[in-house]
């Protein structure tokens, strides 16, 4: 579903991603793990069009996304949940949710998608008419993921969803993510610094270090590779 080939990105001469290739199949989660500065966020920002690559391509279901504007990429079914939740705190919870998939024509299904988001994350329902600024960290993450899902995406990009969350909330959200991925045939790219949690939920894993892919395998197998864990993941 999501095919990243030989992606190379530089910030003013400094190479942040160097020939990275990752493929995510429908209905599966691939996690990209690695230390700070490994290029994880650069990778998702390039996929969603916020950064332009020097070389390489991003394809979704055969459509080439490379060089398109972020708003066009979003409309092609790539939902990006940015680092730090990415909610708009000045508007209400409900308005934030309605922004998910606002371009879609099917009004009835848009309404249904929003109701599904409330069912998925009930804490949002009681706060629906409050400003998003009033939400806790976990609720913000629910809102951000709920909003991404409300756009009925094919590809879901999650950048550090564990950041600032209590372990219990994180486990809950990851559980739901796993079920949803299967049910809705999503291709999920999960960026994480918290490798332990990411490896427990993902099917496949890619380890980035200084902009290069240094290892890739089934997530379960990577989690069991002691040498690799010590070298790159720090646990």
């Amino acid at each position, binding site marked *: 579903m999501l095919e990243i080939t030989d992606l190379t990105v530089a910030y003013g001469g400094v190479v942040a991603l160097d020939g990275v290739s990752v493929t995510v199949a429908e209905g599966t989660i691939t996690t990209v793990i690695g230390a700070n500065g490994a290029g994880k966020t650069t990778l998702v920002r390039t996929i969603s069009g916020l950064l332009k690559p020097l070389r390489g391509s991003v394809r979704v279901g055969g459509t080439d996304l490379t060089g398109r504007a972020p708003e066009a990429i979003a409309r092609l079914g790539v939902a990006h949940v940015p680092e730090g939740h*990415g909610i708009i705190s000045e*508007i209400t919870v409900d308005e934030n949710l309605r922004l998910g998939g*606002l371009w879609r024509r099917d009004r009835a299904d848009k309404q249904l998608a929003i109701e599904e988001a409330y069912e998925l994350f009930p804490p949002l329902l009681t706060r629906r008419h409050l400003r998003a600024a009033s939400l806790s960290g976990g609720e913000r993450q629910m809102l951000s993921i709920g909003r991404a899902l409300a756009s009925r995406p094919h590809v879901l990009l999650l950048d550090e969803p564990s950041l600032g969350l209590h372990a219990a909330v994180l486990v809950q959200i990851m559980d739901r993510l796993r079920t949803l991925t299967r049910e809705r045939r999503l291709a999920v790219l999960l960026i994480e610094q918290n490798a332990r949690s990411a490896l427990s939920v993902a099917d496949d894993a890619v380890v980035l270090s200084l902009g290069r892919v240094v290892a890739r395998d089934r997530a379960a197998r990577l989690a069991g590779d002691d040498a690799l864990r010590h070298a790159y993941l720090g646990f």
Partner: protein
Amino acid sequence: MRTFLILTVDGVTNGFVYAVVALALVMIWRATRVVNYAQGAMAMFTTYIALFAITHGVTYWLAFVIALGAGFLIGAGVERVLVRPVESRPPLNVVILTLGLLIFLEALAPMLFGGQVKSFPAPFSRNDLTIGTTQLYVSPFDIFVVGAVLLTMVALLLFFQRTTIGLRMRAAAFGPEIARLLGVRVGRMLALGWGLAALLGAMAGLLIAPAIFLYPNNMDEILVFGFTGAVLGGLDSPVGAVVGALLVGLGLSYVGGYAGSDLETMGGLIILIAVLMVRPQGLFAARRQREA
């Protein structure tokens, strides 16, 4: 008492016009984080367009609509053609650009329409109403001004709160990058915002011109008063801008009436300086500024 009533009615009527200018400034401030110093000059220009239409046989109301439409196109055009190329640069670049536009429009207007002071028609009588023998100190035109502004404010509120375009515009203003990731065409929303702001400006120009006459820099003071009102309200809040502008209108009317009309502009300046010194965040506990 009589003087006080006259000054109060005057102050409220003018305040409503300043409020429209203040709202236009707030709208652009929220979307682009710049103050559009050409807001007044753009309004002057569209008032000339209206007068040009009227002198060529067009009715007042059609000319009114033409001026608002022209304002929208000029505003959206300015954003697309002039502001967008410098958008990613420091905000000061855009501010200087709007100053340049102000000078350009004030030079262009006399070339196209003549530089002399012209009177501008009002659609209703500007003489005070009387009931029996009691004078009311309110003219039908005053009522029209206040009514038109109130109607516009309600329409704007409904537009921003109740329509999806309004939601998109707010998202684009508060979180441009997040909005783009959600498929909002932020560039279009900015152009739309500038267009709407210039439409509001055009309306203010039309409503104030019968009282202040029409000449190439007739809106300079009005811009300063509107800006003072917007700053009074915290620059970020539409409600604050309206209340601030009404206070400015009333304050200036009293200063002009009791202390001499020469002091009116000075009064505006003094209010602005006082607010900036005592409460730079505005009278309303404005929200902290968003980080970029």
